């Protein structure tokens, strides 16, 4: 069986760090000046939430070889818990974010123990089924308000000083959350842990024979991925001021997969590019109704048949750099 991605470019480690650092500084600089350019900040904030979500998903698929078709459950769970904590319990925003992240972490521990018992496509089907189980639970439990969702979530003042109802302040808080999550993932994939994870992706049997307890590594990657997806869910609540069933539905899980696939599986920056590309496409084509779904399907098919490296993966391959 061929490896899932061929986005691994072999270069000396010194240059890899150099290239990735340059792109990271460029990305941060561009994102930092967005509020001064007059670009609609809510679009970029939404993009940042999905970019973090896709990066977390990519940690699991691109580096661990595990395709989760239920990542929306972390986004939705963190969103519901964060929204409930802010609106009903009157938590300040920083504690609301933490509450959402903790909920996603707990969920990822419970679902991870079940899901990593199977590999490959079974793992994908199991995560999809688990997410659907949660969807029905959230549809029926009273605190989520069913089809209406939790609306009008107050943004409040972070640490008592940062007024999040001001768009610029909110923007930099969301950017800070995104960069924190991005760097955490970057650190993880370049650590010894990340190296073992890539070894498992390439050849799990060999990793086992070398003495690695691969299930523990996969579970840890799953929990890390789910927790950071939860951070994206909490931030998204602060931006959108609501939490709804859309965020737990399987279509959302599919969109996460699509963003990562378009950007480039197993690349550092691919999921960010893919998330912004898909969000932008949805914005521009919003008036075309269900044709958006059809176009997403076509992108899936085209990507899988001809474009498996994704945008960033193709660029990296062309320049023989690691991005």
């Amino acid at each position, binding site marked *: 069986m061929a490896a899932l991605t061929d986005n691994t470019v072999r270069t000396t480690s010194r240059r890899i760090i150099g290239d990735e650092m340059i792109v990271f500084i460029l990305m941060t600089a561009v994102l930092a000046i967005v509020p001064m350019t007059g670009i609609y900040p809510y679009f970029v904030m939404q993009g940042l939430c999905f970019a973090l979500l896709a990066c977390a998903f990519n940690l699991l698929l691109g580096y661990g070889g595990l395709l989760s078709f239920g990542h929306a459950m972390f986004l939705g769970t963190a969103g519901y818990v964060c929204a409930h904590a802010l609106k009903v319990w009157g938590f300040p925003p920083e504690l609301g974010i933490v509450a959402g992240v903790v909920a996603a972490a707990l969920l990822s521990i419970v679902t991870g123990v*079940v899901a990593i018992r*199977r590999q*490959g496509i079974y793992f994908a089907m199991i995560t*999809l*089924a688990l997410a659907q*189980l949660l969807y029905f639970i959230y549809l029926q439990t009273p605190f989520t308000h069913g089809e209406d969702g939790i609306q009008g979530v107050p943004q409040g003042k972070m640490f008592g000083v940062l007024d999040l109802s001001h768009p610029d302040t909110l923007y930099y808080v969301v950017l800070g959350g995104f960069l924190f999550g991005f760097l955490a993932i970057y650190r993880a994939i370049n650590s010894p842990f990340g190296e073992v994870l890539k070894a498992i992706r390439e050849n799990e049997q060999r990793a086992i024979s070398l003495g690695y307890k691969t299930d523990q590594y996969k579970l840890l990657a799953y929990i890390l991925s789910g927790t950071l997806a939860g951070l994206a869910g909490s931030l998204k609540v602060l931006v959108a001021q609501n939490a709804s069933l859309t965020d737990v539905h399987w279509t959302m899980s599919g969109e996460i997969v699509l963003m990562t696939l378009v950007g480039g599986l197993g690349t550092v920056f691919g999921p960010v590019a893919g998330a912004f590309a898909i969000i932008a496409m949805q914005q521009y084509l919003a008036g075309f109704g269900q044709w958006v779904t059809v176009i997403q*399907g076509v*992108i*899936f098919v085209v990507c*899988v048949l001809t474009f498996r490296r994704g945008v960033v993966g193709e660029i990296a391959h062309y320049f023989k750099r690691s991005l």
Partner: protein
Amino acid sequence: MSINLQALSAQLLVGLINGSFYALLSLGLAVIFGMLNIINFAHGAVYMMGAFCAYFLLNVFGIGYWPALILAPVLVGIFGMLTERTMLKWLAGLDHLYGLLLTFGLALIIQGVFQNYFGSSGLPYAIPSELQGGINLGFMFLPIYRGWVIVCSLVVCIATWYLIERTRLGAYLRAATENPTLVRAFGINVPRMITLTYGLGVGLAALAGVLSAPINQVRPLMGADLIIVVFAVVVIGGMGSIMGSIITGFALGIIEGLTKYFYPEASNTVVFVLMVLVLLVKPTGLTGRAV
């Protein structure tokens, strides 16, 4: 606790009907997976296409239920074989996950196109006149059409099992699953067999769609949520055995029906909860081999 036999048997009947659809769909998934190593995410979409095909045959060409029962699976099966020849074929040798992603994309395209033209509401499809009415069994009233659906799917399931496990063609198929290169060396056209197998699996799903058209209305998203339940059924049963998929499908339908009677709040989730329990106790699934 007193049991209302009338209500209980009504829910059991609904469970058996759903179980027949689970069995037909998971059987098709297992057949396709055995040959192509692909989990067909578009299975729910082709199920829906089967129902729509019957609807078009009736309303555009005036072709009734009985011919549609044969024609719709054949037409949708041909559509499936075309997608196999033009797309899925190119995924051979790649990671299995790409097959899942490609068929997911196909499902989005098919469902999106139908949603554009038919919205999300249901279209009615009448029960054929021969199967209208019902029989009073004393403890319950059995609508004839529902009894027919259960019998028909049981027969088709067992026929498929016979075809694969007991005939020469099935022997080739099973051999090609184990070692395609060797089977090709014996002069058997394996690529054509793969195409036909995909057509067969898709045709089974379309047949389930035609059977369900008079019961559940014809809707563009009728297969979208169903396929996730069927995935859970497949995880529970394992895809190693044809008979295993059939029995698991019917059994889970019945369990779902019982849950609808005893604890209706959990009827949407019971299959998923069972999947979790099975994974904790026997990760390979009830009949599955280790993967």
